[in-house]
């Protein structure tokens, strides 16, 4: 299964024959191996796979945070490989929203300051109406002037989601956004992302190894050993779990489970 690009489709981001190799000689690791995939606009896509399968690497390459060894990545029609560091920086600032697993916020800034940080880095003001709407959507009206240290993990992650959404990016990329959260807080964050797709038409790409999280997505892409192993539309946690189990049996040597 090498081709998952439908030329008639409109993709927010895509990778074409992407390879990413770490190290040299004996220690060479193929974190990504000939990956071709597209992420349709306005959809919520989850990338799943066991630990070490290359999920984070794929996300980093798509965001221009990491260089590809081979192949090409596109954001909309922009090919990232040809961009300078400065252009990549602007692209991340203006066209991508990030949510990491942990350490998403600057400790010296209030929640509100963190949310508008990309805009102020660009020297812009955020659209106040939109800001209000996003803040209301993530339920943080009462917490805007607290610092990260004064917020719970779930609240911090919701601030991060708000930051990712407020710039109306072409795509929101989230790497295990619920990895550090208890299940209730995790559910809140996932619901937020789901709502962003349903109500705001946002494109979301989420890396996870949690079947429950994947259940919030419109479709799931399975990675194993740096390759695309499978797809699933309209996933449910049970189906994803079954698929993963089968997958584990097949690819027994893919690496350790869990984080």
């Amino acid at each position, binding site marked *: 299964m090498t081709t998952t690009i439908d030329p008639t489709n409109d993709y927010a981001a895509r990778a074409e024959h992407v390879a990413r190799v770490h190290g040299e000689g004996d220690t060479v690791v193929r974190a990504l191996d000939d990956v071709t995939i597209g992420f349709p606009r306005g959809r919520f896509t989850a990338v799943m796979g066991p630990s070490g399968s290359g999920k984070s690497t794929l996300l980093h390459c798509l965001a221009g*945070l990491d260089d590809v060894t081979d192949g090409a990545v596109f954001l909309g029609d922009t090919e990232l490989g040809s961009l300078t560091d400065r252009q990549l920086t602007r692209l991340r600032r203006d066209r991508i929203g990030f949510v990491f697993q942990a350490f998403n916020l600057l*400790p*010296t800034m209030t929640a509100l300051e963190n949310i508008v940080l990309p805009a102020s880095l660009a020297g812009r003001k955020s659209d106040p109406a939109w800001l209000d709407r996003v803040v209301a959507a993530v339920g943080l009206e009462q917490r805007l002037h607290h610092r990260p240290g004064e917020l719970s993990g779930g609240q911090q992650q919701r601030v991060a989601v708000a930051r990712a959404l407020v710039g109306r990016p072409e795509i929101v990329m989230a790497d295990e956004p619920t990895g550090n959260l208890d299940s209730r807080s995790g559910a809140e964050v996932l619901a937020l992302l789901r709502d962003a797709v349903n109500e705001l038409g946002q494109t979301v790409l989420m890396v996870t190894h949690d079947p429950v999280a994947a259940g919030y997505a419109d479709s799931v892409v399975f990675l194993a050993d740096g390759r695309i192993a499978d797809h699933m539309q309209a996933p449910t946690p049970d189906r994803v779990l079954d698929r993963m189990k089968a997958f584990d049996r097949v690819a027994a040597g893919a690496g350790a489970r869990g984080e």
Partner: protein
Amino acid sequence: MLIRLSLANLWARKRRLVGLALAVLLGTAFLSGALVLADTMNSSVGGLIRDSGAGTDVVVRNATSVTDRPGTQRGAIDAVLVDRVRAVPGVAGAEPVIQGYGQVVGKDGKALTGNGPRMAGNWIADPALTPYRLATGRAPTAPDEVVIDRGSAKQGHLRPGDRVTVLTPGPVPVTIVGVATFGDLDAFGGGSYTAFDLDGARRYVMRDPGKVGTIAVRAVSGTDQKDLAARIQRALPADVQAVPGSVATGEAVSAVEDSFLRVFRTFLTVFAAIALVVAAFSINHTFSVVAAQRTREVALMRALGASRSQALRQALIEALVIGVVASALGLAAGLGLAAGLKELFAGLGFELPARGLTFKASTALTVLPVGILVTAFAALVPAVRGSRVAPVTALRGAGAERTELPRRRLIVGLVLLAAGLAVGIAGGGLVGLAIAAPALLAGVLLVAPAGIRAAGGPLTAPLPRLRGAPGALARGNLLRSPRRTAGAATAMLLGIAIVTLFAVFAASLKEGAGDQTRKVIAGQLVIGGSSPGGWAGGGHSPELTRRAAELPGVVAATGIRNAGALVDGHSRQLLAVDSARLDRLFDLDVKKGRVTGLGANGMAVSADSAKDRGWQLGSTAEVTFPDGARQSFTVTGLYDRTAVVGDYLIDRIAWESHADAALDAATVLRLAPGTSTDTVEAAVERLAKDYGAPPVRDREGFVRARAAMLQTLVAVVYVLLALALVIALGGIANTLSLAAYERTRELGLLRAIGAARSQVRSALRWESTLVAVIGAASGLVVGLFLGWVAIRAIGGANTGAALPFSVPTVQLAVLVGVGALGGLAAGARPAARAARLPVLRSVATE
């Protein structure tokens, strides 16, 4: 096991290791440098004098000593004694030694001045009896031939064959026939030496063919110095003494050590102490920067089952390793620093008579323990704190960086601050200063974090608006932990406070001295009197004074002559003047009696000295002259103003019959009313050309020139203080780059969400600049206040007129500007490095 874990831990965090070691190294290097320089001075000056006297077994000299100031001579002795000494059995050789004032005039007609005595004498052929060695040319064989020291030869671009003038102080046209070294040095410190042949030295330097200064004796080998001295003594009259060479050398060494060297050593010690305090704060702060991570590590070890003492031991071992290695490196770096300082001083015209570097065990025994102890202390504080924090709390990342400010510290700080201010304002002289200064500084340091929290927010509020996101980031980092910010600014604060204190002090002293000089000189013109560095022994021929007095428009004139003598058995500096019209030339603020027409037996005394000696008008003062003669003087006048003239005035008639009097240190001229000062000045200048062109100045010019004499010393002091500032800036740079390293993830996150490299750079630069400005501004305020207290303390301790409080605005503005720019520069490297961090690695860093 523990040791291996500690070492592994150190190695794993190399960047941090380097940063911590650097802080320790900087501090110890300055301490070590100061100590090495002081020891070098001590041993090499002593060594040079010992070397120069090494071959002299016995010195025959005048028995009367009126002063032990280095560079001054005893009275002369009869020349016929040379032959008598030569005849004593056991004497292998005896050479007359003549030494006096002699100043070489360069080809451009200007005297070759320098920071040391200008000496002339006779060339001594016997190498055992002189430290001077011919480098090029030959010895003088005629009265108008001279050998000069290589320092002067280089300074004036002179070589054998050149014809120049030597002022002794009358102008003597001579031909240079040779260039000599002092041992292996170009010259003795900043001094100069011109050697005539014996005839020439008698004629021009001694000005009395029947006399010589001393006689240097070389013994037949195997003869005991003491025995020979005793035997020679039997051949001498009572007013001449023969002393063993080792004794004479010892006296000379201790004379130098007691005067100029003691001042220098004290000064270096003070500098070392300042450097140490600044360094201690710097080291301590550097460790507190990594405290957050340190605390987490300790907590992790505790969570894994390490006991508190194990965790503390591990921290201690790490600190010891850093302390020992870095202190040892600092010790070595100090040697280089001392060598550099020596060169730098020479460049400033402050040549030290030193060769090589002296490294004493005591330096190592001071620097190593200090470096190690300060390091251990600085490292233990965060470790102890870490071991107290509950492991879970620390692991979750909270509580690692303490942001709350203990109320007790604030209260203690406020109390100290208030006490310091109160004592300072109340005065209380030097004791008050000694209490106010430490109390105030400690108070400021304790209150600083709260101050930054309270005032820092509003003060930096415009920054985000002016500088956008980077400004906001810098501001956030400054305010996130006021204690950390205060810590970073502390070294700067101390450095600037001390420099400010000194600058105010120097400016006020200068201003005060200028005021006094302006008041005391009643004449309109002054010739000479401003040799650089204030070396005694300089001056011009009294003939110039005489001829200037005869110029049209001059109504009164006097030469000022330094006259060392014993007053009631105490070594004192007298001034011999032409007292006939002294009131026209000096405004001495006479309290009682008169200061004019002192005659052969009259003496005018400052009111202070008279009080000390218990004298009144009409009291008798017993004076012993350098030639051994004693004479009683009657106190005829008491005066208050002692600037320029000193405490004792006699007439030159009383002086001339007892000592060589052919040198006026300065000349003061009074002009007739309505005479143009400029016209007379031009005429005097034309006259002065024949006498080595000593400077001719009006009163203001003289005041300025006297002030400039302090300039070299002030410059040297500024160099040392600037080094203290460098430590402070180095500390800021170091802690900033460490902080950036500790914040790698934060910076990575910033870059990931779209901060440009330039924005990251700008944020860090702003942070360091602000820290420097905070430190510099508060240091300035503290320094100004302490300067004010110090000036009043000195003014109070001294019964003389109170010193004016003078603020050198320009220097201080430059100082604060340099501090701020230094902060910017200090931040440049860490900021550039942080901006270069690969985003992905930063985000991924655990």
